[in-house]
């Protein structure tokens, strides 16, 4: 079991390494002098000389790659070409906003989606089940930024129930909360549908299995059977799905942040692309990749520890 943990974490680190290497080669895709590209139009000869030395731009590619990776491992993602602040600081400054958004979206989706799926499974083929089934599919297929746009249009602009721009006053919890509602809703809606369908299918499968019949034969209460015996098994696919879904969550967050003019990685990366601020672009992508890899690694590890059957097969 410990071996599996180590192997899995090592794989995660390896993937991050390969991603960083790919980023490195991206710079060289752009026509022109890499130093100037990285530094932008305000590059002074001193800055160019400095960066050439730090990144070894006059040296063979392999050495450059080594220096590049080395820099990153030391926490140096380069400097923002416009404000001349370290990229790391900029990206980590914006990251919390995105994390909060993703976190609230998925927690909200789980709080609604999992019970909904449970209910549908226990009352299957009733009218309520069928209706929620169709609604679930509709939720899943509507692209999240369309949901975001409509939420903005209906709830913020027209009805004025919620604010339409930004993340709210720092330090004012409720203000920040009200700014979170619509964006989290936009991202979470698809997940409510997805999770409820998943839990429903999973529960139906588990409830039909022999050990549930045994539990009933032993007179265990329906509550115990559903919420402890069945749900514990049925919830496993949910864990994997959320872990892997981090990628979708990040993508959805990017678009939603733009729609609601919220600070975060999305806004950061779009602005950086427009202003050709390549170090920030790379830094944002790298951080989001690390986030994704951490998330899938954690979900794999949690999955392995929750289901003893998987543990036995390792």
């Amino acid at each position, binding site marked *: 079991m410990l071996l599996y943990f180590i192997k899995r974490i090592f794989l995660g680190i390896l*993937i991050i390494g390969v991603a960083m290497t790919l980023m490195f080669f991206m710079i060289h895709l752009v026509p022109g002098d890499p130093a100037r590209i990285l530094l932008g139009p305000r590059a002074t000869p001193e800055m160019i000389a400095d960066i050439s030395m730090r990144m070894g731009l006059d040296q063979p590619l392999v050495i450059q790659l080594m220096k590049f990776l080395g820099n990153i491992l030391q926490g140096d993602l380069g400097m923002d070409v416009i404000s001349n602040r370290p990229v790391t600081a900029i990206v980590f400054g914006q990251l919390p906003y995105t994390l909060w958004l993703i976190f609230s979206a998925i927690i909200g989706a789980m709080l609604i989606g999992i019970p909904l799926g449970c209910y549908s499974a226990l009352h299957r083929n009733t009218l309520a089940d069928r209706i929620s089934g169709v609604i679930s599919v509709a939720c899943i297929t509507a692209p999240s930024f369309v949901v975001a*746009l409509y939420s903005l249009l209906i709830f913020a602009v027209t009805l004025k129930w919620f604010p339409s721009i930004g993340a709210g006053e720092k330090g004012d919890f409720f203000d920040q909360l009200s700014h979170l509602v619509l964006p989290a809703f936009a991202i979470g809606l698809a997940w409510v549908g997805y999770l409820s369908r998943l839990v429903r299918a999973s529960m139906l499968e588990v409830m039909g299995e022999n050990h549930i019949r045994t539990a009933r034969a032993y007179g265990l209460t329906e509550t115990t059977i559903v919420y402890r015996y069945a749900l514990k098994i049925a919830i496993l696919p949910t864990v994997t799905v959320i872990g892997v879904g981090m990628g979708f969550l990040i993508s959805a967050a990017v678009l939603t942040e733009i729609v609601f003019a919220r600070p975060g990685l999305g806004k950061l990366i*779009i602005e950086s692309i427009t202003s050709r601020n390549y170090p920030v672009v*790379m830094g944002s992508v790298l951080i989001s*990749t690390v986030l994704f890899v951490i998330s899938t690694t954690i979900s794999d590890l949690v999955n392995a520890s929750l289901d003893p059957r998987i543990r036995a097969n390792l």
Partner: protein
Amino acid sequence: MKVAIKRISSDPLGLLGLCLVTLMVVSALGASIFAPYDPIQLNIMERLQGPSANHLLGTDQLGRDLFSRVLFGGQVALKVAFLSIGSALIVGIILGLIAGYGPVWLDNSIMLLFDTIRSVPTIMLALVTVAFVGASLTTLIFVIAASSIPTYGRIVRTQTLTIKSKDFVKAEMLMGASVLRILSIHLLPNILGPLLILASMDIPSIIALEAGLSFLGMGVKPPTPSWGSILNDGFTLIRNTPWPIIAGSIPLVLATLGFTFLGESLRDLLDPKLRKLI
């Protein structure tokens, strides 16, 4: 084919999907015929109008007819979807075969590459490529294809490994059958079906991805109409008029719903057991 259509028709959602998809494809392919106006024709006099007999979906801030833009936007969506999935399938199959059949180190390297690509959130991958290479239809197709290759490649590779280890294949190999023969006779016919279904179920998300990127201004370049760029215009004008948003979102939602229902119907049709895989 006829049998397929008949069976899909028996499933109400599948039928709905088929109708929506047909509607979308026909209107996109025949955009030049159906569109009442040139989609990039400016007409400042008639800007920001709501729907009317003249302009079924109204006009945008430059007076362009939204209905025509929507029809031509469908062309972009279809182009991106089919070209990117098509190329992803081809490259994915090839790489998957190589990974499955070739030496272990090659397999491991290819799989690592696949895992890495899959570990970068798709939109981030697209954005960073666009940042360095510039936005265009070709870039879009390339990036979307690149992000889909690992999924298909992995399936092909797993199947190749399974087939490779089957006794009857080993027997054939002993008798001197060429790799090509084994692949084409034993492998490809079996995986092509599920692969195509899987690919068709990716279409909705790819259409959404293209729309999303165009919405961010990182997709097709203006003035080419794309549902995403219509939505972007609508976003800027959100306090003035809701119509561009409505115009851009309707085809997007209908297309994604249609392809999703159709895809699920096809999948259940061909093999209900796939429900667990896909």
